[in-house]
């Protein structure tokens, strides 16, 4: 059993003159519910794309489940599930057809694929519209389907890019419970979200990226310990986040310029 489910060394990605991800060392232990945070344009999506094989790093190394991604891409991909940015759905298939397709892409036999598809569609409350094309699904339904597709093969690592965006409260509650059970069984979940309350409630460990560099990493308790809150009590994730990336003067809101509004 490897020490870390996800491990990167000097992970860097440049787009021309812009360094979107700069020399990142990320370490996520197996079974962790890991939150990956950062302001807009900080490099979260670029990192998750590199970790899931959608983007090649400019330099550095990615190791998932003890395997080097570059040299064992197919083997690694077999053990991970992804809800990428934009969800990556084939919109001209029905939900069931898409899950069959994904199941077989991950090498499941037909009977297993069929059984798991039916169960997942039921769980995600998508079974009521079997003939509807994904193109005609609402955003929330597409998100639920993308989540179902990401877990159909029982991955050991799950990468989720804004998984609850657009999902109704009922389904979100069920999903959170499902993800909690998965981590209890040893699945590692790597999640990005702008909703800090969700991350705080679900994740045991967090990393914060800003301007391409990793500025904080550790358990919530470790991060809380590093933040001074005036009064007694522990800092919230929002306070941790703001104290880590919000100290930049440029990011402080200048209300005096909006007197006509405020």
């Amino acid at each position, binding site marked *: 059993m490897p020490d870390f489910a996800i491990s990167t060394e000097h992970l860097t990605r440049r787009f021309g003159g812009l360094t979107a991800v700069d020399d990142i060392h990320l370490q996520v232990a197996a079974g962790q519910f890991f939150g990956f945070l950062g302001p807009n344009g900080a490099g979260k999506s670029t990192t998750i794309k590199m970790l*899931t*094989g*959608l983007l090649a790093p400019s330099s550095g190394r990615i190791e998932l489940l003890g395997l080097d991604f570059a040299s064992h891409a197919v083997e690694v991909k*077999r053990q991970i599930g992804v809800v990428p940015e934009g969800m990556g759905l*084939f919109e001209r298939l029905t939900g069931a057809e898409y899950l069959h*397709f994904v199941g077989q892409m991950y090498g499941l036999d037909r009977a297993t694929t069929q059984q798991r598809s039916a169960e997942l569609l039921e769980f995600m409350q998508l079974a009521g*519209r079997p003939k509807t*094309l994904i193109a005609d699904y609402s955003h929330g339904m597409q998100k639920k389907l993308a989540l179902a597709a990401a877990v159909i093969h029982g991955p050991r690592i799950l990468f989720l890019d804004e998984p609850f965006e657009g999902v109704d409260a009922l389904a979100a509650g069920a999903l959170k419970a499902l993800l909690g059970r998965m981590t209890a069984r040893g699945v590692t979940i790597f999640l990005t979200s702008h909703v800090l309350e969700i991350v705080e409630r679900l994740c045991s460990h967090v990393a914060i990226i800003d301007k391409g560099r990793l500025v904080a990493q550790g358990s919530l308790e470790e991060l809380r310990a590093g933040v001074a809150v005036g009064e007694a009590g522990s800092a919230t994730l929002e306070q941790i986040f703001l104290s880590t990336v919000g100290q930049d003067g440029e990011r402080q809101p200048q209300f005096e310029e909006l007197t006509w509004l405020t």
Partner: protein
Amino acid sequence: MADLIRVPGVAAQIRLVAGLRWRILRNGLRRKSNRLDLIGMILAGIFAAFLIFGVSTGFFAGTRYVLTKDHASWIAFLFWAIFLCWQVFPVLVAGFGAAFEFRTLLRFPLSLRAFYLIGLAYGFAELSAVAGTCWIVAMLLSAALVRPSVLPLMTAIAGLFLLLNVTLERLLASWIERLFARRRTREVFLGLFVLAMICVQFIGPLLNRYGEALRRFASHLLIYLAPFPPSLAGRAISDFLQEDWAGVLGSFAGLLGFAAALSFLLWLRFSAQYRGEELSETSAPVPQRPRARQESSGAFVLDRLSPQAGAIVRKELCYLLRNGFALLSLLFPPVLVLLFSSPFAGSRREPFRHGLSPAMLFPAMMAYIVFILITPAYNCFAFESRGIQTYFTAPLRFRHVFLAKNLVLALVLIFDLSLCIAVFAFSAGLPSLPQFIATLVAIVFAVAGQFAIANWSSLCFPRKLVFGQMRNQRQSGMAVLIAFGVQIVFAGVGAVILFAGRWTQDAWLPAEVFAMLSVAAVLGYFASLDSLSELAERKKEALIETLCR
């Protein structure tokens, strides 16, 4: 705060929208492809200007003729020509081109009157409206030279006719927008459009055969067209020349009535849009009983593939069956074969009568069909959209993706070519056995050879296309160029080999040469798959970026 807000006037709002469109165009030029599009638009604009000017001279001459030769009643034909062009052309191109979404303006404080006038003003910016206006101006100029006395009335009628046309065109556009809001309608329309284009091919033969009867039918039809605006406009002018003032007044009133009625209907349509008409695609969920689904046990061919390739083949077949345009394009080749081979049928079957013998027509026809059907392979990820990411996150080598996609296209080719051969055999008869075999083997050579190049082109020059949508739907220019170039080369090689067979009087020589080339092409195809897999890894970012845009 709110007391500082002043709602701008209608003219200012029109100016603002014009400025917005200009900035959209200017910012679009930051992309290289859009800059190339602009060059294309300029060239097309120059061509259109020449065309409009040329036709304007025709209208000028036509008006001069009818006014000088005392055929004033014929002027209605000129109005009909303008009317049909103005109304039909925008309907035909409704799905093409970048249409400006007026409804997005509704979130701004825009009065209904301004919304109506902006809609009408932009109606005059349509190509057909510009052309129609130019032609009417040409008619007025001609009338001013030949019969100055008719000019005041003709100007008034022309003004009313312009207003009427632009109002009707906007009204039709608004109804079309309402219809096209639904994906299914767009797809059906696209299918009908393709079918109509196929039917156009038959106009020539039909006119040749039933020309006289059609002319008689058209003359009967003309009587029923009299109460419509173009006829009314024409009759007002001819009545004026015959000094039938009651007739002039009646026709003018008729035109006014049409203009008022259409304006009222357009006002109603725009009012509905202004109130926030719902054109949403998503319908309310309809409870459906889940049906137990059995996978077809006849899919034994797919079972022989890797699970990934099998899954992709199934997905491609689903996509094919749900793509009305692709399905209709499968009907196109047999229809073409029927059309081109029928002159060689029966008693008229004489070699070289049409410059091409039936024996040479068969390979030429098959080459043309392959050319039509294989072109989509040069941009084979066009419809994947965001789904392309799945191919890179799933545990598979990209060769499976190509294998599956090429297999589906090969099946389509086999199906369509079989139909075409059957149609050809029925209408013109099959060529000699050596030539038949040579053609079949040449197809294998051309298809296998092209698949390798087409796969490379799909990775290097991808372009996203959207199902059931015609707007902005163009293949990658480079992919089209490569497809043309490659097919010209393959056709050239094939022609040389076929003529070599004729020249050497060895009937089986082409079949033997094509067989050797086919083996080489098939081996080359399989050898290319691994390097293409590596290329896919290198090109994945550009591919994902293009298709997920």
